């Protein structure tokens, strides 16, 4: 069982960056106005930020990192580890984290690598960087997490296009012997890998003459093999089946109860999923912040983006015990108990 309890690492700051360009689901004329209204009401997603062709995930993470390092007054040469978590890297190779090491002017003594995970990526990334840092070998680290999901979407696919938005985030971690411990519960189920997938472009199915062919899968869904596929019902059932037991496992492992948490920050999949989970756990609505309405499902960036946009002022001047829960593509899911105290949290950046 992938339960982890990590000492000596604290979250020092969180920042987030989104594209300036706003799209409204009310203008999504691939579906009828009635369907658009139902979609907004059910998913809780009204607006999404869509990056232009010259903005990548790494650019949004870069801006987030710069703002965070400046506001936290951290000397860049003190960063000893950088991890980039994304499913929209700059290139097939090399790893984007290494390009970011140089671009951020971090020293060559910095350890940098990528993690290829989506919706669950923030919690996974946090567990990995904290695990490496808890030994005391790394005093300061950067976790850069985000996705440009719009890159792989078909505008003629009502099951994906109105759901996803782009965002890139940065989290600064610090070795701190007084830090409260963090607890994690990390899980995987590859039998569901086809539920959220881009089929072509990897080594299993390299791009070929058929890859760009637009095919009608069902009414309202026209896409090619280069586009993202999302089996909404399968993902929905997976989330309802797995998230609550995963959280209960974490509570049991960390010897806590739901009452011990000030906030529950969920991956922003869609409102129907999160609200159903909330009701199963019998949580008060005010304990669950949402960034869905303004930014949509921002993949791995959703948890830090929600903290920055919905709790930004609160986390600067308070100490909170927070439960994080993230779930999706893989299938992969995880939860964490973390404590954040008076963290640095720059205002949302727009590029």
């Amino acid at each position, binding site marked *: 069982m992938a339960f982890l309890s990590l000492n000596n690492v604290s979250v020092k700051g969180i920042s987030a960056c989104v594209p300036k360009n706003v799209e409204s689901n009310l203008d999504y004329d691939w579906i009828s106005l009635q369907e658009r209204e*139902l979609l907004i009401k059910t998913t809780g997603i009204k607006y999404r930020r869509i990056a232009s062709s010259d903005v990548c995930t790494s650019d949004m993470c870069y801006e987030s990192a710069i703002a965070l390092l400046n506001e936290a007054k951290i000397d860049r040469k003190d960063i000893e580890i950088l991890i980039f978590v994304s499913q929209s890297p700059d290139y097939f190779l090399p790893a984007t984290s290494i390009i970011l090491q140089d671009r951020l002017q971090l020293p060559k003594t910095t350890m940098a690598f990528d993690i290829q995970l989506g919706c669950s990526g923030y919690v996974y990334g946090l567990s990995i960087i904290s695990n490496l840092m808890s030994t005391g070998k790394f005093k300061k680290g950067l976790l850069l997490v985000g996705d440009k999901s719009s890159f792989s979407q078909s505008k003629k696919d009502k099951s994906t296009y109105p759901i996803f938005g782009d965002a890139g985030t940065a989290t600064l971690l610090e070795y701190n012997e007084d830090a409260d411990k963090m607890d994690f519960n990390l899980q995987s189920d590859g039998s569901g890998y086809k539920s959220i997938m881009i089929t072509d472009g990897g080594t299993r199915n390299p791009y070929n003459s058929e890859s760009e062919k637009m095919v009608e899968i069902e009414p309202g869904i026209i896409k090619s093999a280069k586009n993202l596929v999302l089996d909404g*019902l399968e993902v929905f059932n997976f989330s309802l089946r797995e998230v609550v037991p995963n959280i209960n496992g974490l509570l049991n492992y960390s010897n806590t109860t739901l009452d011990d948490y000030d906030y529950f920050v969920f991956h922003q999949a869609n409102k129907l999923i999160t609200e159903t989970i909330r*009701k199963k756990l019998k949580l008060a609505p005010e304990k669950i912040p949402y960034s869905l309405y303004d930014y949509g499902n921002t993949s791995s960036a959703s948890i830090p983006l929600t903290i920055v946009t919905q709790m930004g002022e609160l986390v600067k001047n308070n100490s909170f015990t927070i439960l994080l829960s993230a779930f999706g593509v893989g299938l992969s899911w995880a939860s964490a108990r973390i404590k954040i105290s008076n963290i640095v949290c720059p205002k949302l950046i727009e590029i």
Partner: protein
Amino acid sequence: MSISEFIKKIEGEIEELTPGTLKPDTKYRTMEGWSSMHALIIVALVDTDYNVTITGEDLRSCQTITDLFNIIKSRV
């Protein structure tokens, strides 16, 4: 559980439905304005209220509200 209760619950969750219009033999998927969003709303309702999972396969095999109700009843 009864089918009339089930129908009331669905009508309670889906605002577009005028109460009283949904019948046990209604072929819900061919109703005007029916959307995949409605399917998700019903799946969420059934999960929350009956603790039963409805799959995509189930939905494709059902024609009427009674068909759906029978699947739920067999799994409660």
